[in-house]
């Protein structure tokens, strides 16, 4: 909840670089808490990039790739829906699941996508449910494929 000690007003005291504090929370654990120079998130209707000093925002997340740029390192995660809240250089990502991109297995996901596509869609509600499952599988697959 609190920013890391070396941060002051969103500025890293040690390097003088502008940073945001990024916290990823899932219902099971706080998956990640790290300072970052830039965070890219999959919103419900497209990707958003968050740089330090972003105006307060609450967004609905889609299923896709989250990138956290920290120095020369880029952390890549698959996030499974949820929300993002930005205020005062604090990026809070609330998601059901945050899976490291390396941990995704494209072959298994391929069959998952097929299964999602095969779901019945004869009523409005069922169609919505199917679309959600398909979007989830597609998002995972997309993140997994970028590994190569």
């Amino acid at each position, binding site marked *: 909840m609190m920013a890391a000690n070396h941060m002051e007003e969103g500025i890293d005291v040690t390097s003088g670089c502008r940073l945001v504090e990024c916290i990823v929370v899932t219902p*099971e654990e706080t998956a990640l808490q790290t300072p970052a120079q830039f965070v890219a998130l999959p919103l419900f209707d497209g990707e958003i990039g968050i740089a330090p000093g972003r105006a307060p925002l609450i967004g609905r997340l889609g299923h896709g790739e989250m990138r956290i740029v920290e120095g020369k390192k880029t952390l890549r995660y698959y996030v499974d829906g949820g*929300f993002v809240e930005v*205020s005062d250089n604090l990026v809070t990502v609330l998601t059901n*699941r945050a899976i490291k991109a390396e941990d995704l297995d494209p072959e298994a996901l391929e069959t998952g996508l097929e299964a999602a596509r095969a779901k019945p869609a004869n009523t409005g*509600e069922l169609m919505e449910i199917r679309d959600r499952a398909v979007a989830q599988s597609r998002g995972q697959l997309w993140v997994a494929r970028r590994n190569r």
Partner: protein
Amino acid sequence: MANARALDKRRKSIRNIRKITRTMELIATARFKHAMDRASAASAYTDRITRLVTKLANTGLELSHPLLEPHETNENVLQLVLTSNRGLCGGYNGNVLRKAFENNQSLKETFGHCRLEVSGKRGISFFEHRDIDVDERFLHFEDKPSFEDVELLANRYLEAYATGTIDRLEVCYTKFSSIARQNATVETLLPLGELASEETSGGDGGDSRSGAGAETIIEFLPSAESILEEVVPTSFKVKLFKCFLDAAVSEQVARMVAMKSATENADELIRELSMTYNRARQGQITGELLEVMGGVEALKT
């Protein structure tokens, strides 16, 4: 003579049992700590969701969603009962099952059809014993229910509620309020009812940074309505997950307490038996002494 040996044998077996209960107590304590950590990790998520809802409400948006509204028909109800797979946990299963049974009876009266889903072997055998059909049984929720598993369940309920297959969802579980207090409760999770009740409970727990954020203008992407559409199912899922976590924590507490009292009881028994054993042994020795002395007396004459 046989008496003393029998007593010693009993004492030995009680000692063995004591060893087992003591170990179980220690295991339950360790598991309880683990379960507790998970529960508090989950509350970090819940608090943040609650704060989000508060901010949404502050924008003046009317909180309405199909999941918040009760259905007009009252025909199908689904009852979910959370019990443990294993026994030896005192009144834990008994309490929740008694509550669930009462609830099941009253639901059957008010609703046309009551579908019953039970997690845990104990609950399943309880309902089977009473000739109540269990429609769905889960055995995989041990002391560490994973969100993924619960989410599958939650999604199924959400689907059923959206398509109108069920009109209400009731969950019977043991609510954990503190180490000394766990109550068997029945909660109606669908329709969700008020989101507002959560706001007052945890909304003010935020730090100063978020407090400042509440006054500033917040941008909603894509729109506040769209976020609400997602918040409501999410808070349902989290609520259901919380039920599972509470049940897991309560089970471990119940086992811990039960095993602690079993160990204490064994200690007491051992003490009493030792006393009787010693007395019997002393009596035996006295008897033998008397015999010897009698023999000496007989030889003298």
